[in-house]
């Protein structure tokens, strides 16, 4: 085993199960229980990446979600690529393949690094706002090169082989974080019988207990956590979710948890036969109460060259040694402001490696851990700090000096200590990201030198997340929070018997963020605040000097906190530096605002199952199978799949749409065609006031429509604009069947309910959607009656069953309502049967229809046929700015109805009274072979210069095989008074079409064909 930094024993890794992995093309071995980061450190890999702006070599700094540098490209195959994976959070698995995201030609020998070295000095924050402006024409060229250096990892270029899913969960208490506070909260809540969910972002639950030096009930702390977890695991009311990050805290205690179900196993989710697993799962949690037990992140100190590989967080050092059995170096210098950080030196020492010195910023450090270090003979240099790291690809030394925090000065001589590792700790920041997602501002506390969560309804912070750090206090705080949350969820909770913990005596920490250097920040070697975005202390100082005084401005000007780590390490340090520069306190400079996500989440996980063929429902009619089997091309209308046209294959050649539509049109005009019209919305309306209600929602009159009759109606909004149209049939004196447009069905149904429930509750009427119950087929054409007569018992005599009548009877032995209405201008029967029998009726019609050459047609032909008759399609010929009067449909407006129906009043506003409104007309192109472009704009004067004065546009345009020429429907300013005038349509190819304004009814203006 070539793991130079792996200890022979200790930690929670399994050395008997080695795992092979590849990093930057080189093979390495780690073991089960490793993260990619711990395995890289075990193998002595120092440089894991190059920085974004200056291309400086970077190593691993942290051991968790706060890691800014070790961001890698994961995946062995192209489709399995994942960009920007944090090595500290990626479990090692056999065959794992990763690369650095930056570095050319490679991360060790990086040519861009030269740019950083030479150009770095010309690239202060905001430099691009100050240059690349001349000449203006070159900006896009400059930008091309700027973009070349963009980004960390790369997107895969092949579709994702994996699937993802959501799962909705409800619970009484959600506990976020399974460290000491979270475990105590969970066990307290769980024992009460509450529905509990406990989640933790790490591979293993236990949090800080996993690398703790302390004893609980006289045994190593981790044994306590194992015990608690065993108990929780056995309880039916508890859901444990390891590898699950709470990413977003939304209103009313809605929390999203991202569970990485397979990312620790392989590049792609394994499947067992046909049983596929989702790669990850998004838990959408509605919790009555939330306990926030997310702990705290350690802050590094900001000193010169603090980005050279070998600079680590003190706590990370402890984690690597104690949890992973890895010592990431030989000789350590620790720079600290607090006692807790001393653990790093003690752990290092106990691992058998040399602790060169501890530079403690406090004048007089004391406490149990300090004593312990002293007793081990570790050199402690008080009132001092590491002011600069030496080394290029790895730390080679630390410059330590006596400093004065108040005056922000180096006050003593500089001692250079040879070492390969510098650990630093500037204190701890509670992890309050989630609590601020809902907009609650955190509060600064001077005593703990950190922000704690503001008050959020339904959320109880506990332990480190609210600045409670000593282990015993943390467990007590967690237990109390658990009990409090359980009570608040309405369940009685007992108190938990607290374990025995010997309280450790810690000295008071001191407030140090940026470490002073011999030179002022602007001239000192770079002191990094945000490692991922290469933001330095000098950069922040410059921003404040240029007038960026709020922390929001500083962040935006320097890009601090905008990386994939969202400033978990750097933000507080940055604020402290800005505060010092502006001579203000930290809370005066601003507060930190966090947004979801806590850590980045795969798009796929957020999308879940709602992709590919489940992206959006496909709605089918009862006849869909027939359409598919008869070669239909489909059109998307809302969510419906409607047959668009039915191309035939003649002599091995498939018809074009144009050919198919011409054939279908002529079939209807000359013989008989059939359309599946099932998608039209249908609403059953019953009640003594049904008629009155119709009179109020439609523009036209309904008072006298007799049972057995059908009428066409227009529906407006109260602004007078057309919103829907359709026919409504009187089934009985108090019983109507309304039809709506396909896309308008749900909207109209809600519209009727809205008015009934909010404005006219006194009207006795009920609405029920029957869209899906009835299948509708339109048989239309001169032979329609003959065909239908063969299969129905209804008397089709033209005087008995007139145009705009409906009758009931059977069709093909199936009870049917038949409506004699026409959207084609031909004799037409709309047959409604219960959808379960639709296929039988349809195929029976075809059996009988063969002799009439019964032709199925789709929406395209329907559009041509109705347009020849000047019949509108709402949404195509209208657009929400068209009134019934604009359409010339005054015949369908009941001006003298007693009730001021919806839309009426609006028709008398100044703008709706204008006579030059755009009005609905027909257009006949002067050249009969021209089919105008739908959407073509219309002008009166083709010779004007641009911008032209446009007077309308083409709404529908087709070639009519019946008329033998192209024709169009359009809206034209004052069009109703301009019949016979010529208008012009200037097209993109420079052609200007001429057309004559005509009536929109091109065929059979007297309606004789449909009345036969």
């Amino acid at each position, binding site marked *: 085993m070539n793991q130079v930094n792996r200890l022979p024993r200790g930690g929670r890794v399994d050395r008997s199960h080695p795992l092979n992995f590849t990093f930057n093309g080189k093979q390495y071995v780690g073991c089960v229980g490793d993260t990619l980061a711990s395995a890289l450190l075990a193998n002595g890999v120092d440089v894991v990446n190059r920085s974004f702006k200056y291309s400086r070599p970077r190593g691993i700094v942290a051991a968790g979600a706060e890691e800014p540098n070790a961001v890698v490209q994961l995946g062995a195959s192209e489709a399995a690529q994942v960009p920007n994976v944090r090595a500290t959070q990626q479990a090692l698995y056999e065959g794992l393949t990763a690369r650095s995201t930056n570095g050319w030609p490679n991360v060790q020998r990086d040519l861009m690094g030269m740019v950083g070295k030479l150009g770095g000095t010309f690239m202060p924050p905001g430099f691009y706002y100050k240059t690349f402006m001349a000449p203006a024409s070159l900006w896009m060229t400059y930008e091309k090169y700027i973009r070349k250096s963009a980004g960390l990892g790369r997107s895969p270029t092949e579709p994702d082989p994996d699937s993802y899913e959501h799962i909705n969960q409800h619970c009484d208490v959600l506990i976020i974080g399974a460290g000491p506070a979270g475990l105590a909260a969970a066990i307290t809540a769980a024992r009460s019988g509450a529905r509990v969910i406990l989640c933790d972002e790490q591979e293993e639950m236990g949090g800080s207990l996993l690398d703790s030096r302390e004893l609980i009930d006289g045994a190593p702390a981790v044994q306590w956590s194992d015990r608690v977890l065993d108990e929780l695991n056995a309880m039916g009311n508890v859901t444990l979710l390891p590898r699950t990050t709470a990413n977003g805290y939304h209103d009313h205690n809605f929390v999203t948890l991202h569970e990485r179900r397979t990312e620790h196993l392989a590049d792609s989710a394994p499947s067992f036969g046909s049983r596929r697993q989702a790669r990850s799962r998004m838990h959408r949690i*509605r919790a009555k109460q939330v306990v926030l037990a997310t702990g705290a992140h350690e802050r590094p100190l900001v000193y010169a060259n603090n980005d050279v590989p070998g600079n680590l967080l003190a706590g990370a050092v402890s984690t690597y040694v104690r949890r992973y059995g890895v010592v990431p170096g030989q000789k350590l210098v620790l720079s600290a402001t607090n006692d807790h950080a001393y653990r790093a030196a003690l752990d290092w020492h106990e691992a058998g490696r040399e602790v060169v010195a501890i530079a403690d910023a406090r004048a007089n450090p004391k406490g149990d851990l300090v004593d312990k270090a002293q007793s081990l003979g570790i050199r402690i240099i008080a009132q001092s700090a590491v002011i600069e790291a030496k080394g290029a690809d790895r730390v080679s030394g630390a410059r330590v000096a006596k400093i004065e925090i108040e005056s922000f000065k180096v006050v003593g001589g500089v001692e250079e200590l040879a070492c390969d590792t510098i650990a630093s700790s500037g204190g701890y920041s509670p992890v309050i990201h989630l609590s601020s997602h809902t907009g609650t501002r955190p509060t600064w506390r001077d005593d703990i030198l950190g922000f704690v969560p503001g008050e959020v309804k339904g959320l109880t912070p506990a332990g480190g997340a609210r600045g409670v750090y000593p282990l015993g206090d943390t467990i007590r705080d967690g237990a109390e929070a658990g009990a409090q949350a359980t009570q608040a969820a309405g369940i009685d909770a007992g108190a938990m018997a607290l374990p025995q913990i010997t309280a450790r005596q810690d000295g008071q920490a001191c407030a140090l963020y940026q470490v002073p250097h011999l030179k002022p920040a602007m001239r000192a070697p770079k002191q990094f605040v945000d490692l991922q975005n290469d933001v330095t202390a000098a950069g922040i100082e410059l921003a404040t000097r240029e007038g960026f005084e709020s922390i929001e401005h500083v962040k935006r000007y320097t890009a601090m906190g905008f990386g994939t780590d969202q400033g978990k390490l750097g933000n507080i340090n940055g604020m402290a530096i800005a505060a010092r520069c502006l001579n203000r306190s930290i809370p005066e400079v601003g507060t930190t605002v966090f947004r979801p996500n806590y850590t980045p989440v795969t798009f796929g996980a957020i999308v879940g*199952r709602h992709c590919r063929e*489940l992206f959006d429902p496909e709605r089918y009619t*009862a006849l869909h199978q027939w359409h598919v089997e008869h070669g239909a091309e489909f059109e998307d209308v809302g969510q419906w799949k409607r047959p668009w046209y039915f191309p035939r294959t003649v002599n091995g050649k498939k018809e074009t749409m144009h050919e198919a539509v011409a054939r279908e049109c002529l079939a209807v005009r000359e013989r008989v065609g059939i359309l599946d019209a099932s998608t039209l919305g249908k609403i*059953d309306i019953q009640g003594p006031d049904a008629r009155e209600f119709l009179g109020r929602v439609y523009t036209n009159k309904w008072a006298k429509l007799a049972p057995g009759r059908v009428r066409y109606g227009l529906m407006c909004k109260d602004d007078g604009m057309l919103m829907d149209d359709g026919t409504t049939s009187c089934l009985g004196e108090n*019983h109507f069947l309304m039809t709506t447009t396909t896309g308008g069905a749900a909207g109209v149904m809600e519209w009727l309910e809205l008015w009934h429930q909010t404005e006219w509750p006194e009207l006795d009427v*009920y609405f*029920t959607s029957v869209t899906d119950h009835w299948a509708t087929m339109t048989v239309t054409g001169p032979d329609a009656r003959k065909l239908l007569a063969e299969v129905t018992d209804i008397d089709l005599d033209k005087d008995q069953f007139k145009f705009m009548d409906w009758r009931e009877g059977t069709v093909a032995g*199936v009870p049917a309502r038949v409506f004699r209405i026409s959207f084609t201008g031909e004799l037409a029967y709309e047959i409604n049967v219960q959808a379960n029998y639709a296929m039988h009726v349809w195929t029976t019609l075809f059996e009988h229809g063969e002799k009439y050459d019964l032709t199925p047609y789709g929406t395209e032909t329907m559009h041509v046929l109705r347009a020849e008759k000047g019949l509108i399609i709402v949404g195509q010929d209208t657009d929400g700015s068209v009134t019934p009067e604009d359409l010339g449909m005054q015949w369908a407006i009941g001006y003298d109805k007693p009730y001021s129906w919806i839309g009426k009043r609006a028709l008398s506003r100044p703008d709706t009274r204008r006579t030059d409104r755009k009005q609905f007309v027909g257009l006949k192109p002067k050249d009969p072979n021209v089919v105008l472009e739908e959407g073509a704009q219309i002008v009166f004067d083709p010779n004007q210069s641009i911008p032209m004065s446009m007077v309308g546009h083409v709404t529908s345009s087709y070639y009519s095989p019946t008329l033998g020429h192209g024709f169009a429907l359009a809206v034209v300013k004052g069009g109703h008074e301009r019949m016979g005038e010529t208008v012009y349509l200037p097209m993109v190819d420079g052609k200007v079409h001429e057309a004559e304004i005509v009536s929109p009814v091109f065929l059979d203006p007297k309606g004789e064909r449909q009345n036969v």
Partner: protein
Amino acid sequence: MSDVKEFDTRPTGSPSSESPLAWSFHRRGTPPREASAGVTLREKAFLGHLILRGGAIVLDEAVREVLGITLPARPNTLALDNSGERSIQWLSPDEWLVIVPGGEEFALEGRLRKALGQAHYSIVNVSGGQTVLTLRGEKAREVLMKSTPYDVHPQAFPVGKGVTTVFAKASVVLRRPTEEGWELVVRRSFADYCYRWLLDAAAEYGVIVER
């Protein structure tokens, strides 16, 4: 209420009929049968579905008289007759869904109308417009959790409950008539989508589709 046109949409003969899932079965078939599937799915096709609208007090009397079931007046509840074949489900304060064995619905509508007389109400036959899917098995609840934001935990969703809620991007009536099984009342045009969704969501547990 009078002056309403009653109409039996079920033929007296026996022409072929197709349930809302016919196309799905035709296109995709059913998954291969597995020994130990976590979920079993079945369509209860061709039942009689009626939507009743009106005041609870008015309807209750008629429903009890005609069906022998007390109208569930409490929100989100479901009442069944002793055989379990006939049910009434609360949909809204003035709306209920009655499901009966196929073929009973028209006669039932007539009897209800007779019992209701001149009161203001509406009865609408929607039998062709929806279908019932049943979901059983130890993983049925997890499949539902993947599909609906409604809380399907037994504490929150006891037997006898039924709700209209979101199912993926469709809406369904989700109900729990018995301890073991769940029912989804699905609109015809969305049935294929719901079927595909269920198969996909249940894939990791293994799924049996009973025909």
